[in-house]
């Protein structure tokens, strides 16, 4: 029986919350447009940071340790080296690149190389057989490279030493900065919205006072306002979501999925835009609800 009562109250509050958005539409518009503007900024920074993260991941995945094998190593030795490498931690894949393949590729790349190298026989080929080693965690690439270098039969390793180390630390900094930007944008949005809603609720002080006087509990006064905040947040996130979906698709198609160079690839639009939209809607709703709830608190005697 009590349960039925609460369900009825909840449904009435949902109805009133929606009604209030419409009845106070000009004031609701203030909160809605405030949410819209800030959510657009949040959308841009979310899309930007997720793309940077994606792109750094692609580059990191591309980090390779080139392992040069001694010229005098026979086939058994070469296989042994592969096994020793695979036994190490942090190894994702090991692939063999023979000196013949390397020579063939070089010939194709340049006319000059082609002229010189065509005269070599297989035994005269001065290049090294190599293993291309990909690591699981690129941050530990230098440690893994050192371990590989110590394996018997390995002539030397190369992985772009200094450059990769500094790239990794730059990526880390970029990720941190983007995270800070996104979080501070969300916090700023929350404050802006709380203040806007506070101003709009100010005009409804009398309504709250009357409800209190006729015996409304704090919860029953607060609930319609919180639900109203939910709707405002939801409505406010519509335009940012549309911009995200259509804008990102447009950008992706215009650029063919790549910006500046072949290396910087954008995330595929689907399902990425829907996930981003969902995040926006959730931020809008939560911030709207928190905004209303903290704004109405001021007028309650608790």
């Amino acid at each position, binding site marked *: 029986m009590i349960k039925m009562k609460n369900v009825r109250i909840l449904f009435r509050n949902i109805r009133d919350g929606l009604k209030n958005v419409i009845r106070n539409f000009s004031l609701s518009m203030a909160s809605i447009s405030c949410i819209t503007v800030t959510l657009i900024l949040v959308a841009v920074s979310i899309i930007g940071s997720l793309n940077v993260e994606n792109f750094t991941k692609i580059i990191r995945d591309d980090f390779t340790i080139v392992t040069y094998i001694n010229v005098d190593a026979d086939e058994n030795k070469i296989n042994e080296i592969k096994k020793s490498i695979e036994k190490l931690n942090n190894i994702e894949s090991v692939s063999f690149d023979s000196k013949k393949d390397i020579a063939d590729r070089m010939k194709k790349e340049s006319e000059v190389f082609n002229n010189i190298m065509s005269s070599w026989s297989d035994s005269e080929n001065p290049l090294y057989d190599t293993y291309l080693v990909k690591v699981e965690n690129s941050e530990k690439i230098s440690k893994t490279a050192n371990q590989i270098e110590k394996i018997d039969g390995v002539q030397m390793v190369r992985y772009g030493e200094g450059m990769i180390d500094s790239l990794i630390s730059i990526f880390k900094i970029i990720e941190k900065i983007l995270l800070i930007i996104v979080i501070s944008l969300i916090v700023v949005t929350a404050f802006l919205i709380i203040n806007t809603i506070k101003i709009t609720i100010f005009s409804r002080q009398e309504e709250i006072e009357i409800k209190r006087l*006729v*015996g409304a509990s704090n919860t029953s006064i607060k609930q319609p306002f919180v639900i109203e905040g939910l709707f405002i947040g939801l409505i406010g996130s519509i335009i940012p979501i549309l911009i995200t979906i259509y804008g990102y698709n447009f950008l992706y198609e215009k650029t063919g999925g790549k910006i500046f160079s072949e290396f910087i690839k954008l995330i595929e639009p689907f399902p990425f835009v829907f996930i981003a939209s969902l995040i926006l809607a959730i931020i809008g709703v939560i911030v709207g609800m928190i905004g209303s709830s903290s704004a109405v608190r001021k007028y309650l005697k608790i």
Partner: protein
Amino acid sequence: MEFIKITDVEKTYPSGVTALYGLNLNIKKGDFAFIIGASGSGKSTLIKMLYREERPTKGEIIIGGVNVGKLKNRKTYKLRRKIGVVFQDFKLLPRLTVYENVAFVLEMFGYDKTEIRAKTLKALDLVGLKEKVKSYPDQLSGGEQQRVAIARAIVNAPKLLICDEPTGNLDPDTSLEIMKVLEVINNLGTTVIVVTHDRDIVNKMKKRVILLDKGKLKKDFEKGTYDKNEKC
């Protein structure tokens, strides 16, 4: 058993002003009482304490067995659901119709639709406004608006109806009509307390009169009249 028992109540506001001193007062169930007194006599403070808008600094106020002064802010609504309050300025919600202004109280308490309809129409019928359910407050006269406020106050069948200068904004004829409505409600068993300045009404109604002066109880008489010699 007394319905309202006020014992040694003193109220000092944070500003240092003392509005009431050592007040002792009992009101029986089913009473109709006027509280009169000049501005600053403490009558508003007294009724604000009855519906727990203010707390006594000293002493205690018991209404129907509940120590009102000890009620926490969060729990105030439990008392208010048993008390109806009517104000000088009506305090109606301008964007709701007459019907909605009365019904929203019951909606908040979670009654079902048929119950709400029956109770709301009954209350509006009692104050004589059954024909105006669809009007908005600004389409009504002052007397009608006050009757809507009374209907709202009594819709949940409270044991006590408190009226703070209910006729302060109304002309004499309309004021008397409002008093007749309050009398009907009183006859149905509700205890009614009316704070007023209105000499004529007090004299015509011949009910209990409680006179406050400078924060103290000066006179308390059954079937009293407004003594012309009293400065009010």
